């Protein structure tokens, strides 16, 4: 009888297989999103104007000074959105906010012929903010009863009763910080209109379908007009 440990004549499992892109990786020839810039012409660069408050209302946004910076082509703000001003999939993340919801929130984006021009343009944009109260720690959020999303409870049996009769009971608190996955490739998107007038986006994302949905609703296009 054939043993499970016997190998078939032409095995597939158990044979080392190299990563399909590995030759490009180890020779440095694999292309990443920001490599597209150097092989394309007339690329515009975008730089965000970031809010210096955790929570604030935008009272006024003056983009005029940015347009005087050499190389600045345009400043994108809420009035430029032909579709829905939302950069999420649950319609709770305005692309161009009127209310700043976190420190560093991009309030508008400056387009320039070079990254440097866009950055200097963003520095020139004038924004008036009215700072609002902010909740930044867990303790503050609990105290203010500011909870987000579902609050699932997992229970089994009768925990209160079991605890009451337990010979030892310990209680305490501990804290630990979160950690975002620190991927090395920096966030970058490269977008252009293809020969059929459709939007083509190359993006360093793990969510191409969400990106497609967002780009389509911001631009008021059907999803099939956007390729990511």
């Amino acid at each position: 009888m054939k043993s499970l440990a016997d190998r078939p004549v032409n095995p597939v499992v158990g044979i080392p297989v190299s990563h399909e892109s590995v030759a490009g990786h180890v020779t440095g020839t694999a292309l990443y999103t920001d490599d597209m810039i150097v092989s394309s012409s007339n690329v515009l660069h975008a730089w965000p104007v970031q809010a210096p408050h955790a929570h604030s209302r935008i009272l006024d946004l003056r983009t005029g000074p940015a347009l005087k910076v050499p190389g600045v082509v345009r400043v994108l703000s809420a009035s430029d959105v032909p579709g829905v001003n939302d950069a999420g999939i649950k319609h709770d993340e305005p692309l161009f906010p009127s209310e700043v919801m976190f420190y560093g929130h991009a309030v508008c984006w400056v387009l320039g012929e070079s990254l440097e021009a866009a950055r200097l343009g963003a520095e020139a944009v004038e924004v008036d903010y009215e700072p609002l109260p902010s909740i930044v720690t867990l303790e503050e959020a609990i105290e203010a009863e500011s909870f987000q999303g579902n609050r699932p409870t997992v229970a089994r049996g009768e925990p209160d009763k079991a605890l009451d009769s337990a010979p030892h009971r310990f209680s305490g608190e501990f804290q630990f910080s979160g950690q975002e996955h620190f991927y090395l490739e920096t966030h970058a998107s490269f977008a252009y209109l293809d020969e059929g007038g459709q939007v083509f986006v190359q993006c360093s994302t793990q969510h191409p379908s969400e990106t497609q949905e967002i780009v389509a609703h911001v631009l008021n296009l059907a999803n099939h007009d956007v390729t990511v």
Partner: protein
Amino acid sequence: MECGACAVLVARPDGPDRSRWTSVNACLPPALAFDGQEIITAEGLGNVSDACTPEDLHPVQREMADRGGSQCGYCTPGFICSMAAEYYRPERSPAEEDRETGTAVVGEEHATDHECGPNGFDLHALSGNLCRCTGYRPIRDAAYALDLPAESDPLLDRQNRPAPAPRHTRVSGEAEFLRPQSLDEVHAVLRNNSDVKLVAGATDLGVEVNLRHSRPPLVLAIDRLDELRSLTFSADSIEIGAALTLSEVERALDGRIPLLGHLFPQFASRLIRNAATFGGNLSTGSPIGDSAPVFLALDARVVLSSTEGEREVPLSEYYTGYRQSVRKPHEMLRAIRIPLPLAESTAFYKIAKRRFDDISSVSVAIALQLSAGVVRSVRIGLGGVAATPIRALATEEALVGRPWTPETVAAAAAVMAGEGTPIDDMRASSLYRSAMLRQALLKFHAENVEELEVAQ
């Protein structure tokens, strides 16, 4: 920042007649700093035009490919270059005993641990390269699988010839870049201009430019000036040129200053040490620069030079405030002098959130000389507990002249906990910093008590 993904190989001088493939971060130095130099990137190592067959790959590339050393591939070219630099390191040789077992040698204490493959590959050659998806094990497997380079390898042969001579580069536009030919030329430029950035490895300036968008109007590259690149030993001192990289000083000292030997493995990463200089680390004046506490403990003096000549200032009197010093705008730090003899017992403790490649929360350097069980002299340098690096003078006073006993040390450790004016910030709380000061002295005593008993 400084993930190492952009690492490249540069042919740097290795003495007057040889060169050495040295891995550095390409994102930090100005491109003009390499005018006339030889650089090899991951693209240049193999036969890129048709890298579809294993024969076209460089041995380093082949091992990384065969052993699953890449996933998203973004960090891979940097790993390839750091690995190639170690592959060609002239001192690398398989150790006989390791060859038997084929396992890594792991040191006992982290400050000096040496993780080395059976092929002599120092794993810390990769400490400046971050990977966030493959994991480091297959990368280590690739590193440890490397053979010695073939004798016919052209890149190995390249190391037998001198590095390209520096060029007298001068480029001006909105900003100006200049590589002066002599120290006198640097002095003259400093005398005639108010806003000059001197650059050697650019490991600090590069961050300022990339992340804080600093745009210095005039940058002077001084990393190849002979006057700044000598290491001289005399009867009463050792002088370290300001523009020698840490890796170069490490090789040239070869353990002659044990306290610096403690520092090197804890100072950033190999990629940074291949570019960074002590002159730069002391000149930026950061209170958490790692070398200042060490040089304070060594009682070092800095040599400042200018058109007016030279003057020597004790490092303990050099800093006057946060990133401020007694150096005048037209002066530059030419060298660091360490008086001899050296204290016999030394340590450097770097307390940071990660074992390597991190910024100190607190750093402590200690140099102790005992005589018949009594503290004859002690100098303690501290980083991260004040606006400048400082000496723990009150603690030193609580130790000197007293017997090196647990009682003396406990009392001095209590004093140590009160040194400086530590603050709460993102790296650590003031309480934690203070606790680490106390603990550092207790640890030093624990590490140095047995020797004392033997000596008695």
